[in-house]
């Protein structure tokens, strides 16, 4: 079992680094969306500071969604997904490895970049650790929930817009908790409660989402 996980992880890692452009694109998108807001609403630091939590979180949501669109597509097209479904190892575990790897190369990069954009949006330095922590807990949830949508739309041609329609409503709790923690931190209030809730959701997503993803893939492959 451990060997399978490791082999899968290595496979995903190699595949990802053969096309580094695909890894970079969601990050550039993230940066672009964040920098559009000062252009749209004006460079006033106080306004930017008030908007920063929402802007960064919405940009993270959209960037995750964009990167998830192709998560299972190439595996579906070259038939390896069928082999996954047929293999004796649990599909749930395999998709969990795949999604966590996806988070490692896309979500984690956003977490690392976020303080930079936070500073550009005039967030005080004392709040930046909270920003990083909320994203660290929140982006795995985004990846896992989004993978459910990606699995359900795997064989469809117009998957991208549909994926957004299916998944964005489910992202709302993460958005509320993430931005709520940031707002609390900006006002100097404790953020532990928000963090615990985000942690709860992360554990819930980590345990339940793989089953939904696997069910979605089985349906998609059987078509």
């Amino acid at each position: 079992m451990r060997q399978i996980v490791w082999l899968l992880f290595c496979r995903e890692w190699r595949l990802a680094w053969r096309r580094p452009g695909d890894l970079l694109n969601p990050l550039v998108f993230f940066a672009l969306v964040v920098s559009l807001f000062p252009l749209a609403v004006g460079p006033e630091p106080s306004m930017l500071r008030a908007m920063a939590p929402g802007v960064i979180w919405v940009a993270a949501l959209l960037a995750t969604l964009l990167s998830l669109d192709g998560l299972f597509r190439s595996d579906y097209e070259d038939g390896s997904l069928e082999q996954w479904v047929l293999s004796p190892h649990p599909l749930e575990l395999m998709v969990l490895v795949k999604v966590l790897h996806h988070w490692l190369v896309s979500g984690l990069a956003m977490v690392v970049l976020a303080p930079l954009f936070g500073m550009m949006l005039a967030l005080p330095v004392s709040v930046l650790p909270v920003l990083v922590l909320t994203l660290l807990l929140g982006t795995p949830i985004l990846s896992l929930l989004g993978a459910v949508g990606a699995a359900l739309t795997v064989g469809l041609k117009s998957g991208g817009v549909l994926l957004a329609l299916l998944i964005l409503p489910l992202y709302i709790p993460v958005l509320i908790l993430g931005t709520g923690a940031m707002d609390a931190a900006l006002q100097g209030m404790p953020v532990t409660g928000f963090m615990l809730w985000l942690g709860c959701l992360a554990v819930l997503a980590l345990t339940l989402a793989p089953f939904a993803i696997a069910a979605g893939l089985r349906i998609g492959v059987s078509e």
Partner: protein
Amino acid sequence: MKWTFFHKLGSPKWFYDISGRWLPWFAVAAVALLAVGSVWGLFIAPQDYQQGNSFRIIYIHVPAAFVAQSCYVMLAVAGIVSLVWRMKLADVALKCAAPIGAWMTFVALLTGAIWGKPTWGTYWVWDARLTSMLILLFLYFGIIALGQAISNRDTAAKATAVLAIVGTVNIPIIKYSVDWWNTLHQPATFTITEKPAMPVEMWLPLLLMVLGFYALFTVSLFMRMRLEVLHREHKTRWVRDVLEKLS
């Protein structure tokens, strides 16, 4: 106990026969309850001492919101039945109930907006319960869109079933997070466990309207499902017999 009745439930022909027998009763109940409830609620019930006559829209708003929410739960139940027991009829129910639920959500949102203008002075506020209804509408749209995007009927049914179940797991989380985010709306009008805060002459017509909306929902669901069953089974002998009798 024998489980044959449970398997009967999955037979389209059995459903077509039994729903044909029940449909007139539900239709009569819906018309009667809605007629009595709306006349009582709109003309006879006393005015609200704060909101005057504008509160009377509650007799449309609350029943629509009730049906909208329970319809989503019904989708998830149908989804579980469809995935676990592979019942064709559950697929049909899931497919046919989603648009009705979306319309009910829309009606609840629309009447809420109309009610909001005289009460809060604005059509829309980002209040917790309004926002969760809006999210519910989006969840319905997602289910309908996924069902339409997949061309294979059985695959579409399974995929929407999974989505409905995932959505239902998320609904309490969404609900609580949105409640926490902002609360301005009055608390729930009706709870089963507590005595209602409204006087009897106000909530009794509301109860009739709620029951009437459920009956209306059942009638329109049955009619949609009967059509869908005929469409899906159009190659079988019993459907041909039914159609011959009709023509």
